[in-house]
């Protein structure tokens, strides 16, 4: 019977989605993530939903596909596309191996809890805070688990493998430099992983049916779905084998009912029923109109939600200072810096689900999870940390892969002119000022020469130059801040623009003589 094979199909599809999703996050060498991330993550519900709200682009309508799928077939998303769902299935599979029979039992739905979590998530979102959504969105939770926990482990394995290969003279596998460690994100990811894994090992899909707001929301839609698994009262012998394997705990074999709001469509039951008593039932004989969310109203509410901006940047941990005169003036900024393509901090914090895909993919390691720089709502959303890297002038990887539209694709031309913030020079910290020795690391990295070097008369009477800012040309890439060598405080730092601006086109000064025509050597 074909229905028996649905479980195999489900497992296959789930593993394909899971593997590709993991690959996108673990791609240490940036070989596959940029070209495939968009396609692989197109159907992830929450990122797509947020993108749809904010851009209303039909191309960003992966969430609509999921809504339609759910209205037709129930919560198949939860058993195939959702990577956190598949992770739970893998944990559950591993936990029950060796045991002959799984022993799931029907349990009453924790309706008060699950609807309270969903309501609170939605209410906070409407009030402009994505905090709960970001914490609970299964895709983003999974992304954070992979980016913050599995990726460092993979990086370690990569570097050990590279080290071993180097012993035999093979350098084809490059080592990868550790990125900045975000303790809070790693801690939260670990807590999520432990909670999810423990529930998956002991209580099946209880997480999905109680805590996960996407599960609860899709459960509401599944309650009106076209095809649903049901039990043929006559054929069923009440053997309970279906209930035994139902990790959602939604089959009540005593009353021969299936709670379709909690059924995750795993089809395990179909595979074990020897009497073919489980079947898909068409519930639309009496049609029920599908409720669509009122998009305009939501968009309005989302957009008008006032966001608390971050206070000041959290200082980096002080490192060993090897400098004749440690700098004294702290780098104070009025605003953190959001990634290029985010347009404004308001758009960014409202749309980003903190899945950390951009953190994983950023080749400069400039994107790092924030703590409270964007306010409590923006917890864990990536910010530009110019101590750990700078934004490469021609790079557009984060905007090419962001699945939620928090970082929109600008194209490289526009990106080069987008001013994320403006660098501020703190002369008193500059080594040219304090030590009267040459530097200019900031100007060296500046792609637009917004940081220029001008002659600096000095007590030592050396031919020194000192930085001078031309803020109009600054794009806030942070090359200057990243390169600035002074410690503990840098002599130049980027103050974020809450709303990104356009910088002036860099001045193209052409050399008068394009080709050297002097025939002789000057020596």
């Amino acid at each position, binding site marked *: 019977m074909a229905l028996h094979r649905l479980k195999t199909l489900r497992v296959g599809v789930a593993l394909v989605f899971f593997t590709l999703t993991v690959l996108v996050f673990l791609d240490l060498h940036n070989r596959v993530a940029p070209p495939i991330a968009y396609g692989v993550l197109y159907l992830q519900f929450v990122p797509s939903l947020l993108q749809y709200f904010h851009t209303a682009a039909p191309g960003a309508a992966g969430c609509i596909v999921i809504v339609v799928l759910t209205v037709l077939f129930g919560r198949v998303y939860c058993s195939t596309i959702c990577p956190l769902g598949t992770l739970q299935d893998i944990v559950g599979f591993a936990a029950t191996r060796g045991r002959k029979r799984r022993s799931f039992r029907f349990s009453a739905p924790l309706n008060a809890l699950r609807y309270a979590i969903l309501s609170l998530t939605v209410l906070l979102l409407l009030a402009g805070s994505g905090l709960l959504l970001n914490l609970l969105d299964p895709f983003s939770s999974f992304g954070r688990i992979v980016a913050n926990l599995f990726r460092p482990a993979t990086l370690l394995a990569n570097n050990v493998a590279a080290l071993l290969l180097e012993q035999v003279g093979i350098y084809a596998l490059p080592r990868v430099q550790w990125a900045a460690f975000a303790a809070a994100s790693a801690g939260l990811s670990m807590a999520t992983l432990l909670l999810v894994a423990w529930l998956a090992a002991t209580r099946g899909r209880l997480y999905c049916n109680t805590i996960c707001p996407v599960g609860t929301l899709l459960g509401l839609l599944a309650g009106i779905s076209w095809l649903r698994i049901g039990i043929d009262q006559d054929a069923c012998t009440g053997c309970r084998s279906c209930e035994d394997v139902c990790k959602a705990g939604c089959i009540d074999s005593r009353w021969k009912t299936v709670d379709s709001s909690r059924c995750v469509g795993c089809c395990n039951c179909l595979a074990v029923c020897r009497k073919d008593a489980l079947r898909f039932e068409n519930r639309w004989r009496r049609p029920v109109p599908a409720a669509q969310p009122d998009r305009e109203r939501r968009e309005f509410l989302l957009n008008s939600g006032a966001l608390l901006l971050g206070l000041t940047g959290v200082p980096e941990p002080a490192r060993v200072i090897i400098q004749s005169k440690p700098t004294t003036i702290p780098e104070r900024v009025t605003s953190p810096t959001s990634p290029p393509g985010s347009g404004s901090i308001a758009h960014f914090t409202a749309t980003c689900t903190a899945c950390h895909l951009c953190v994983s993919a950023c080749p400069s390691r400039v994107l790092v999870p924030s703590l409270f720089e964007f306010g409590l709502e923006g917890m864990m959303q990536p910010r530009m940390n110019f101590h750990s890297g700078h934004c490469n*002038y021609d*790079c557009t990887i984060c905007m090419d892969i962001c699945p939620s539209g928090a970082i929109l694709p600008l194209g490289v031309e526009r990106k080069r002119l987008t001013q994320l913030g403006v660098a501020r020079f703190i002369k008193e910290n500059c*080594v040219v000022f304090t030590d009267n*020795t040459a*530097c*200019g690391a900031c100007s060296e990295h500046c792609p637009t*020469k917004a940081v220029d070097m001008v002659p600096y008369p000095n007590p030592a009477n050396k*031919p020194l130059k000192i930085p001078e800012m031309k803020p109009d040309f600054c794009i806030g890439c942070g090359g200057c801040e990243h390169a600035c060598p002074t410690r503990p405080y840098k002599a130049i730092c980027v103050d974020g623009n809450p709303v990104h601006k356009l910088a002036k086109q860099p001045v193209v000064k052409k050399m008068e003589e394009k080709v050297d025509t002097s025939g002789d050597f000057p*020596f």
Partner: protein
Amino acid sequence: MDRRDFMKKMIGTGIVAGSTVAFGDYADLFAAPGASPPAFDLVAVKGGEPEVMFDKAIASLGGMAEFVPRGSKVLVKPNIGWDVPPERAGNTHPKLVARIVEQCLAAGAKEVSVFDHTCDPWAQCYRNSGIERAVKDVGGRIVSGDSEGYYQQVAVPNGRRLTEAKVHELLLDADVFINVPILKHHSSSMLTVGMKNLMGVVWDRGFWHRNDLHQCIADFASYRKPTLTVVDAYNVMKQNGPRGVSAGDVVAMKSLIVSPDFVAADAAAAKIFGAEPGDIPYIQLAAEMGLGRIDLGALSINRIKL
């Protein structure tokens, strides 16, 4: 530090390269026995394509085999610091790098590695500079410089300000070290040529910047003398260096300098750029430290016009 003390430190570090400084001779320790000293102190070529100019220059120095013994491990260190295309002249010309790798392999080198500790993200620099493709196509080995794990702490015994540095393991491993800088204007050091290009073999460049950059550049140059310095002055960034803002910063000078004396190479390059070598502090400091010759007039120079 007296000479005995110095020699002890040398042995202590166990760095073969250090001894080249002590003995003042650059290649004999590695070169095939009986190799004759090169005919010229410096070769300058003008008017050709990068690879053609290199062929002429190396031939006039007696061929690559003079510098690259059979079975040796070679490190070729170009400037790959920036994610810019070749026409912007931010990085060494890929054709020049490829030809040097080819010549080394033809001379019987066991392996030829190429890396740089880049300023922009390394994979993008390697790709967009054209150097990764060019090197791979001729059988060279492209290696990353982007992980601190590659770098090992070494002493810089002759350093005045810089006394230790973390250096890429491939430099420690190499029998032959060919430095292939591109000549450019530089906002930090006024000019970047050979000695400045060595910042790409160490991990912590910030230390140099905050501890008297010019002195640190000269100090590190005393750590290991390159077997050869090949200065790419084919396209020269005359302003807005070292990254450049547009192709308008570049002047086609179609020149190349090759010398076993890196101070002389830098001095000659400064002249080509239009600067006085003595005005570039690190060149002056290196000459004062006895690392090479700045007095171009006293050198035997082969000038080749194509």
